[in-house]
């Protein structure tokens, strides 16, 4: 119960940070960090995919309504719910086993965790920025936006991930 409440507060905090701080930031056209996808990335890997989909839908709709995304945020968040176990396995060779006693995310090494979080943020940013422009005309601008925004998002997200998994969930 305590852990589930932790996820609720994390969701709330990330949504507030995204809507009121990060979305208001205007650093550069090609530098747009985002954190709200962490809500889906950090959900327990042991959860059934259907519940992760439900959370993704709710978070996506809240973002779309708050920031006028008209479906863009939902459309880019839902695939994360479906691919996260595959991304986890492909990047770290870790998967949920039936006899596990503690959450998988808390048992991963820092390196594995960073690779998984980085890969998931990259997948999200790839979908988001491509769907936003849907054009290959400014391909280099699109590639630069995806790479630079992913890097900055990972840098901002990493302390939150470490704090949440080591101090709150563990």
């Amino acid at each position, binding site marked *: 119960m305590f852990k589930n409440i932790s996820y609720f507060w994390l969701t709330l905090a990330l949504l507030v940070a995204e809507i009121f701080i990060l979305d208001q930031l205007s650093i550069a056209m090609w530098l747009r960090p985002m954190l709200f996808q962490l809500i889906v990335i950090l959900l327990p890997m042991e959860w059934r995919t259907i519940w992760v989909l439900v959370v993704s839908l709710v978070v996506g709709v809240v973002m779309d309504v708050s920031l006028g995304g008209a479906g*863009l945020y939902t459309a880019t968040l839902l695939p994360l719910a479906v691919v996260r176990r595959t991304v986890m396995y492909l990047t770290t060779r870790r998967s949920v086993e039936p006899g596990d006693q503690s959450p998988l995310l808390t048992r991963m090494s820092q390196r594995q965790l960073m690779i998984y979080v980085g890969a998931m943020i990259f997948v999200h940013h790839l979908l988001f920025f491509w769907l936003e422009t849907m054009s290959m005309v400014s391909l280099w601008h699109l590639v630069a936006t995806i790479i630079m925004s992913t890097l900055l998002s990972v840098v901002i997200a990493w302390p939150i991930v470490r704090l949440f998994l080591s101090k709150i969930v563990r």
Partner: protein
Amino acid sequence: MHRLVEFIKRIYVLVVFLLLEVGALWSYATSSSYAEAKILSRTTAVGGAVSGVITDVGHFFSLPEVNRRLTARVAELNEELESAEALLYASGLDTTAMAMFEDSNHHFRYHPARVVSMTTNRKKNIIVLDRGTIDGVARDMGVITPDNELVGYVVSCSEHYAVVMPMLNIDFSTGGRIVENDHVCVIRWTGESRFEVEAVELSIYSEPKRGMEVEVRSERLPSGITVGTIEEYELNSAKSAYTATLRIAADMATLDNVLIVENTHYGEIEELIKQVEN
């Protein structure tokens, strides 16, 4: 039954995901005209590529017939060109008249194209052609059959494909004129028969008759492009103009090879019109 339940249990997450994803994308696609146009262009490119592979097989078996028709058309055009040139020089027209003759025929370019897919059973039908921006095709170009019959206008282009709004689309509208007496009209489709379009706003002095031919009158196409022939006509309720029903000249259901017509002066004309409108 047990197997069916097991199967549904296995795929229901994927089905739920696909439904939610399609819903979100649909919402995004219809949120702005930019997103709508971009997604239409992408789906056209993908759908066009798939349809292209399927129709290529069919085209392979119809190549002899296509070659025959194209060869006949080339020969016909060569003959027309030669006789026109001979006539021009023999008649000894002055240089101004010759310049006018040349000018009126040299600002239209023709791009041959093939129909990849098309619809004829909807209110807003479209045709996808296998030529796109990479081939020099652009929005607003006219599309005709090799027999100089109107098909429609290009409304959207991707790199390799073009979407045409044919006459059989309720949003279609273009200018027309009766060949016999030069009276102008507006051509549009009512959405009822795929063999007929309507010519409206015909002057009460135009004296339409059954069998009269109607051509396109538009800056996007040269003269001599047939729309169809008058089948029926009647005065409107205010008795201020005629409305005629035209039998479409082109066989829209069996379109295959078409010509995309580019007016190289179109940009200039459009610019002028914009200036006047502003």
